[in-house]
């Protein structure tokens, strides 16, 4: 296994991507809307595809707007189908996102001749390719540094997520915990809901190039789930999820280019391995978590804390 500058950039992009996803993911998890993350990440595809077709480029701000609109529409359509059609929420979500994904796929396949986008990348991205698309380069102490566009975009989205979460920390918290209470306190829980959906959609779009639209679900949900098993405090949960997210990006890429050699094979997909590393972390925490872990349960009996504990800070 050999390490190049390009590998460093892959890891940086991966870390930025994983942390950007983990933060809104915590709120999705607490609001018991993890599958909404799944739905939105599938559903932004037609938005992306149309934006590709219209602008012919991957880097327009219009692409973000388009995909974010489709992401929020997913939430809205789901709401309509479940309230007008009296269909179970999970099922409405399933109908909406499969429809949108199918539509997006159709558009992408149709446009394949015109736009440089491969259906495979839709699923798991092409993080290995991101360093090739250079945004800007400069020279420091005689060493040329090429900053990939993906790194800049993801850094921007990460900052956006951080700013919004810090600015609306208590509003988001109370809206996640008890929407009705929030409304009675004068916080529009509906707006908080759509704000979160928009964040998820924007993050998904930004992460799309690196990890595709399915692996991104792992980035959204798994770090949050790990952190939820380890702490009862919301801000600690955000920090822990970010740490595990970052670790998964580093170890994911290392194992993607390193592990296969042990079996006499070449490398494998980094994004896939990031999800696998997260899965391994999850299983370890599941087993040995000091408060929630299976092992502790075997010894001390049940100790399941409730969601309320997280709010008592």
């Amino acid at each position, binding site marked *: 296994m050999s390490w190049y500058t390009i590998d460093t950039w892959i890891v940086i992009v991966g870390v930025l991507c994983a942390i950007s996803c983990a933060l809104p993911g915590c709120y999705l998890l607490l609001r018991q809307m993890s599958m909404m993350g799944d739905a939105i990440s599938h559903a932004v595809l037609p938005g992306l595809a149309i934006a590709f077709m219209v602008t012919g480029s991957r880097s327009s701000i219009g692409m973000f707007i388009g995909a974010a609109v489709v992401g929020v529409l997913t939430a809205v359509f789901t709401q309509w189908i479940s309230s007008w059609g009296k269909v179970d929420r999970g099922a409405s979500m399933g109908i909406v996102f499969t429809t949108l994904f199918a539509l997006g796929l159709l558009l992408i396949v149709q446009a394949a001749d015109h736009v440089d986008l491969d259906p495979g990348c839709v699923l798991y991205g092409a993080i290995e390719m991101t360093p090739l698309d250079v945004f800007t380069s400069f020279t420091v102490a005689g060493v040329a540094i090429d900053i990939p566009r993906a790194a800049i975009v993801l850094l921007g989205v990460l900052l956006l997520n951080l700013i919004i979460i810090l600015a609306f920390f208590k509003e988001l918290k109370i809206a996640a915990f008890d929407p009705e209470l929030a409304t009675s306190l004068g916080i529009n829980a509906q707006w908080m809901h759509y704000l979160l959906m928009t964040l998820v959609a924007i993050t998904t779009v930004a992460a799309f190039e690196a990890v595709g639209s399915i692996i991104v679900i792992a980035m959204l949900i798994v770090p949050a789930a790990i952190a939820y098993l380890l702490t009862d405090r919301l801000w600690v949960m955000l920090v822990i999820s970010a740490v595990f997210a970052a670790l998964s990006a580093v170890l994911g890429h290392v194992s993607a280019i390193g592990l296969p050699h042990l079996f006499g094979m070449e490398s494998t997909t980094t994004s896939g391995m990031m999800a696998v590393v997260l899965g391994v972390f999850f299983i370890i925490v599941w087993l040995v978590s000091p408060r929630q872990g299976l092992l502790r349960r075997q010894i001390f009996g*049940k*100790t399941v804390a*409730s969601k309320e504990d997280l709010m008592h800070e």
Partner: protein
Amino acid sequence: MQANLENRPIATHEASYPLAIHDLTVAYSRKPVIWDIDLDIPEGKLVGVIGPNGAGKSTLLKACLDLVPKASGDVRIYGQIYRKNRNLVGYVPQRESVDWDFPISALDVVTMGLYGNIGWLKPVRSQHKAIALDALDRVGVAQLADRQISQLSGGQQQRVFIARALAQQAQLYFMDEPFAAVDAATERAVVELLQDLRNQGKTCVVVHHDLSTVTQYFDWVILLNMRVVAAGPTQTVFTQENLHKTYGGKLTLLVEASEALKNLGK
């Protein structure tokens, strides 16, 4: 069943009791919901389970029916564990526990009471439908047999649920708040039905909310607030003092006022 059963010097728990609860504790999460319940319920009684919200009334029923795991203790139905004697037990869950949009008719719901007897993979036959229709007739909604259940009123839905338990042809009935949010006519019909069952020697354990009707409806009450505050015949157990112990400060002025009014009337 359990090793420590013999060492405990408590209620006789004779096999003749329809329901004998011994030292029952149930815990969700970290804290116990009901704790050290020890009860014998005599046959042929209409038993009200009374207590404030969160007192563990539903949990007590669910633990008796093996629906929630017991942290400790033991429940006997006519001297046997639940699994062995479940043919003798009928159950009416809370009305909100199911989805009333479900695409089935009232008759289908009542027929479910017979599925246990019909057994695996055997189809429902016309004699089963006849039994179910008869049960619907007993609760006065036979004319609604073919209605889809969402087209029934709240009271009618509750009657259908009770008809399902009747179709089980049990000796011991557990009912979880059968009077919650039903019209007064349904309440009256259901009470008459329960008294009917009692007169046939059957036992009904009913979670109940409305303190003002307790003395009117029940022969026996269990006052519950995590532990059994008091249990026994209504006239001896359902006292101001016991109610205060059960509800603490939560016993509202309204209830006291209604009690006072009732005493005036006597």
